[in-house]
């Protein structure tokens, strides 16, 4: 027997899905419930928030008090394994540009981390080129996707308030939680400045929607995963119910290598390496659905070369990997002197903000295209690593309990009391905006580098343009206005031209999309309006890759809606024997 052989899994499937995050989880859920036999490949381990628990734990239960570690970049209690660097799985950069690629290899993928911010794209978000001449229009419009947003709302649950805003369509909302104290001050300041501050829209169950999931109990820890499934994560809300149909096999620790095709150019399955036994496998299916994340799916296609597809699979257009774009991000924080020495009560609330600001201005009157939304935080949260850092910059600036201002820094009983005194008085805000999708921001295969599995890695080329920098400048000016109007003092995050106004490096906001964009023209797009590859009829991409433009909204709700829509199309096409 040769040392190296490729094993075939015992069973053939109707559909093979790569990736179990929002897109893959939704595809598995919809297809399995239609009686279709599905195999779901996940590059990481199994995970269930009810069993892999960090929720309701105390800081001292982590030896690093919740600080980030190489295995959990968002902290020791965060549900998401992984981060911007994963041992043995590098990526590279071209021309000294920067892009940080966050990966979470585990069941549910990055839905284990995200802030549950669940925003519908609006009618304008699908037609940006028609409005400002930049980028491209989507081949679909809001009315095409609206019924699927409705279904996602009902299936998963989202709270919010009906606002009838023109480009921030309302969902079918559960009732929102009341604002916390700092959020009342933010809302008051926003109102004075004509900046809307409205209830946030998060996929957290303020009311139960079925018997499988419990209602939120207000611990503020959605990022840790919820033991009663009171919030959305792909494992708890989509994959577990899909498994219960008996129609889904999950293969964990399966790192996809290539999409396999036959001599007619049809996809026949996936080859993967099993991380546990280090053996090579193939799994066959009538339909292949990629949901490995925008960049990972592009990588898979580009690595799936054959005599028929010398440029990578589904890439005759050369568009795979191009038009990569992440949300813009900039932030600022301050202290609200009137909250110093505040009364204690439990204000944990839901995980994340209770209020937010949707984009409210007209770009025709501004020097940049596209908008941003604002997220807020603050208050008496659970102390963790970093708590109290920099007290010498605070306790010499404000009068103490006795009305006298002390010398900065210090030690002893008086210092000990300062930590109590200033607790809960700080707050912050961050903008998340729309970048322009551009052909020269891309990922491609690095010709000289492979990962520890021998899979060629991605090389990124990404630069912000003036549009994004000016947007960040506007964010900072807005934040400073809000903080000032609240009666607060900015303590960090003042931006300047030298640091692009604090504009985060691309990839840091983890909203990257666009690498397998959809369109009607096969020369300019990878998939059609049903997320189906133009060149390979039984190949679909249902992660963020097919996004033509990102909007000033978090992408998850739109990934879910488009994946549901594509899955229904797959069911239909399978019935018609078209694929």
């Amino acid at each position: 027997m040769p040392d190296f052989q490729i094993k075939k899994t015992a069973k053939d499937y109707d559909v093979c899905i790569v990736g179990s995050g929002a897109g893959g989880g939704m595809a598995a859920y919809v297809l399995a419930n239609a009686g279709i036999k599905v195999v779901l490949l996940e590059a990481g381990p199994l995970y269930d928030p009810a069993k892999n628990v960090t929720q309701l734990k105390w800081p001292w239960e982590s030896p690093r008090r919740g600080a980030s570690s190489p295995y959990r970049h968002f902290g020791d209690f965060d549900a998401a394994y992984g981060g911007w660097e994963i041992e043995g799985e590098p990526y590279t950069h071209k021309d000294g540009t920067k892009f940080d690629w966050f990966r979470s290899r585990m069941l549910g993928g990055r839905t284990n981390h995200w802030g549950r911010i669940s925003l519908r794209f609006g009618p304008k978000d699908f037609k940006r080129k028609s409005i400002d001449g930049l980028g491209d229009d989507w081949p679909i419009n809001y009315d095409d996707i609206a019924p699927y947003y409705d279904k996602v709302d009902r299936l998963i649950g989202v709270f919010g308030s009906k606002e009838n805003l023109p480009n921030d369509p309302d969902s079918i909302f559960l009732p929102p939680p009341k604002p916390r104290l700092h959020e009342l001050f933010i809302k008051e300041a926003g109102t004075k400045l004509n900046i809307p501050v409205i209830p946030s829209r998060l996929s957290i169950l303020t009311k139960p929607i079925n018997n499988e999931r419990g209602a939120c109990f207000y611990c503020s820890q959605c990022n840790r995963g919820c033991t009663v499934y009171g919030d959305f994560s792909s494992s708890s809300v989509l994959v577990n119910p899909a498994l219960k149909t008996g129609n889904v096999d999950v293969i964990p620790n399966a790192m996809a290598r290539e999409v396999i095709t036959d001599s007619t150019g049809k996809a026949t399955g996936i080859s993967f390496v099993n991380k546990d036994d280090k053996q090579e496998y193939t799994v066959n299916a009538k339909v292949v659905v990629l949901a490995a994340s925008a960049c990972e799916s592009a990588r898979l296609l580009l690595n799936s070369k054959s005599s028929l597809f010398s440029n990578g699979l589904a890439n005759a257009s050369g568009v795979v990997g191009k038009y990569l774009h992440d949300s813009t991000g900039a932030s600022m924080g301050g202290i609200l002197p009137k909250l110093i020495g505040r009364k204690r009560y439990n204000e944990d609330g839901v995980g994340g903000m209770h209020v937010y600001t949707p984009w409210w201005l007209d770009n025709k009157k501004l020097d940049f295209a596209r908008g941003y939304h604002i997220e807020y935080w603050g208050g008496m949260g659970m102390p963790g690593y970093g708590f109290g850092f920099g007290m010498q910059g605070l306790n010499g600036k404000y009068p103490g309990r006795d009305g006298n201002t002390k010398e900065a820094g210090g030690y002893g009983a008086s210092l000990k009391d300062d930590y109590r005194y200033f607790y809960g008085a700080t707050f912050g805000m961050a903008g998340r905006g729309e970048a322009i999708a551009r052909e020269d921001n891309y990922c491609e295969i690095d010709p000289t580098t492979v990962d520890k599995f021998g899979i060629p890695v991605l090389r990124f080329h990404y630069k912000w343009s003036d549009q994004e920098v000016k947007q960040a400048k506007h964010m900072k000016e807005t934040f400073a206005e809000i903080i000032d109007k609240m009666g607060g003092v900015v303590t960090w995050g003042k931006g300047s031209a030298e640091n692009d106004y604090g504009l985060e490096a691309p990839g840091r906001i983890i909203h990257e999309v666009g690498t397998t964009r959809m369109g009607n023209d096969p020369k300019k797009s990878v998939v059609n309006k049903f997320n189906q590859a133009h060149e390979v009829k039984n190949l679909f991409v249902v992660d963020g890759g097919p996004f033509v433009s990102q909007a000033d909204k978090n992408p998850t709700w739109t990934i879910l809606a488009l994946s549901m829509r594509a899955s229904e199309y797959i069911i239909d096409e399978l019935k018609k024997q078209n694929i």
Partner: protein
Amino acid sequence: MDRRKYLKTLAVGSLGATALLSQSCETPKEKTPELPTFTIDRTPDELLREQKLLSETFFDEHEMKTIRLLADIIIPKDETSGSASDAKVPEFIEFIVKDMPQHQIPLRGGLKWLDLQCMKRFNADFSSCSSAQQIEMVDEIAWPEKAKPEMVQGVAFFNLMRDLTACGFFTSEIGIKDLGYMGNRPNQWDGVPQDVLDQYGMKYDERTLTESVKFDS
């Protein structure tokens, strides 16, 4: 942990996956028996790293003695709660420098700097000085805005010690209780308490009261 059992449960009825999973369970792992145990979710990679960190010692006895003295000067026992060492802050600092090596040189070098300063002044290292001498030395480096220019390295060291001590203390069980953090338990958030709203002259508008989630009381 019961993850293996869970893997099998999830794989029930799936021939292909079961075959793969049972293979994976048989794969021999280089596991040493004394992996540390945690009350929070840990992946196998995390457990190996924790084990490595916990098996190492960074600070020597003299350094730990000095850290303990400084930590209790920064956060002493008072009428509300115990001291930094009561809250095991020195042990936290020993762990965190292994976890975050960027703190190692500033702390080790700072401790050495402190001992040399004390040798010059009092002909004794910091821990051998009298309490009054220790406080005299600390007063030179604890007040960044009035410290003498030649004390600037000491100020940087003391700032780091202050940060790590306070953080270690207020993330301990003693410290959380002292601080009065009241969350991390199932509850119903029904808005800011009325007396607090009154204190700040705030109120919820009618629409918020009508549309927000309500609870059966």
